């Protein structure tokens, strides 16, 4: 079976399949509907999609046959749960899904806005709120958990340690990185070394904005983070974060991050000029690559537009899977590389804004 690239846009799910060494659009699912999440459970090759209907709310669907048939799944619910005392919570958006480990078949984690982490033990039929994180004292403090570009905080990154499925990390915007060593019963912040330049105390324990965090599967002490305030890398499981970017030159600000799971020194980012100017630096779309843990970053832009590009790549719109690097932009452009980003190829240029991307390798 050839690999497929699943591109979630604001107007449908677009499938690119490899045909004669080129990726071509072969299918469109949920045509016209906003895709808020795309995830492939590698354990079973199950495709998951959440829809953010304008009128009908969030919906979750899955397919066990590569999109031939889609089934409705259960939904996380905040019924009876207060966001703050006396203020009921309700589901705003599904942001991220992650399987709970190879030793926990049928178990899934789900990250949502307004900040609830949910768990399913029956492959998405039912979801229950993780009370350990929801009841963390910091969540009730508006100065520690707060929305960023949204009215509420949201969980956009979930990491399950490949060595121990009870060891977890989540990334919350805004709050920061939290770790659990007991399967989610208790959580503690892991933000030492991060910078929150928008706070009076830039080194506050909580209140950070990690746009995306990824852990290297072959070297699980190494965690990468594209943050609102730069790019960070931890070599000790998040105990300390080290800034590996410079504020005065790209890459620094951005959302998209991809890493090499076989080499913890390699990562790719797609920067924007700045927080205030979310367009490519010098209007040239570039992917930056490091092979030495972020000491140096080099642009890899052959095949990408070198002028008058206004594209921004969102946090879930960039992926590396085996030899495939692929990303989509908010202008509906999709690019892929099969040689670590040395040469990029435009796959599509007239899609709707791209929010999510996933690769099915089988």
């Amino acid at each position, binding site marked *: 079976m050839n690999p497929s690239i699943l591109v979630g846009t604001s107007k449908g799910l677009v499938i690119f399949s490899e045909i004669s060494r080129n990726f071509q659009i072969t299918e469109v699912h949920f045509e016209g509907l906003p895709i808020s999440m795309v995830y492939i459970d590698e354990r079973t090759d199950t495709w998951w999609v959440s829809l953010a*209907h*304008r*009128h009908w709310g969030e919906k979750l669907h899955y397919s066990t046959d590569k999109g031939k048939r889609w089934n409705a799944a259960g939904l*996380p619910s905040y019924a009876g749960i207060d966001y703050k005392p006396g203020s009921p919570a*309700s589901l705003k958006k599904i942001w991220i899904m992650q399987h709970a480990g190879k030793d926990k078949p049928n178990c899934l984690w789900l990250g949502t806005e307004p900040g609830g982490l949910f768990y399913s033990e029956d492959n998405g039929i039912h979801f229950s709120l993780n009370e350990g994180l929801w009841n963390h004292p910091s969540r009730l403090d508006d100065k520690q958990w707060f929305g960023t570009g949204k009215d509420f905080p949201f969980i956009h990154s979930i990491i399950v340690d490949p060595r121990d499925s009870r060891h977890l990390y989540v990334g919350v915007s805004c709050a920061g990185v939290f770790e659990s060593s007991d399967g989610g019963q208790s959580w503690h912040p892991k933000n030492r070394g991060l910078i929150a330049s928008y706070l009076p105390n830039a080194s506050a324990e909580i209140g950070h904005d990690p746009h995306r965090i990824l852990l290297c599967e072959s070297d699980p002490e190494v965690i990468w983070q594209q943050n609102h305030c730069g790019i960070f890398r931890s070599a000790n499981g998040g105990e300390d974060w080290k800034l590996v970017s410079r504020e005065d030159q790209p890459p620094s600000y951005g959302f998209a991050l991809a890493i090499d799971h076989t080499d913890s020194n390699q990562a790719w980012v797609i920067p924007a000029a700045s927080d205030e100017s979310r367009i490519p630096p010098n209007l040239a779309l570039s992917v930056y690559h490091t092979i030495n843990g972020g000491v140096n970053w080099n642009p890899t832009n052959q095949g990408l537009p070198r002028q008058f590009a206004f594209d921004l790549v969102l946090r879930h719109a960039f992926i590396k899977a085996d030899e495939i690097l692929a990303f989509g932009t908010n202008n509906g452009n999709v690019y892929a590389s099969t040689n670590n980003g040395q040469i990029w190829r435009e796959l599509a240029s007239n899609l709707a804004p791209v929010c999510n991307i996933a690769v099915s390798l089988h």
Partner: protein
Amino acid sequence: MAKVKLTSALRRFFPALSELNVDASNVQDVIILLENEYPGISSYLLDDCGHLRQHVNIFVKGELINDRENLSDHLGEGDEVLIFQALSGG
């Protein structure tokens, strides 16, 4: 009996959707009966807290319902219930 009409926009997700005559004393009853007829439809109309979704409107006898949280608006014999999506941009 009340007559229930739903927006055709929902037919994409519930192809068998059609007008219904239901024995309901309030709007909450209508939703329950609709869910029995079209399993899953209540999650399209109500949010996870059971409140009418922000961008869904229900009219009874041509008037927007008053109680969007508990859906307690009363229905009389022969009342017409219209369930529409709100207008939006984009």
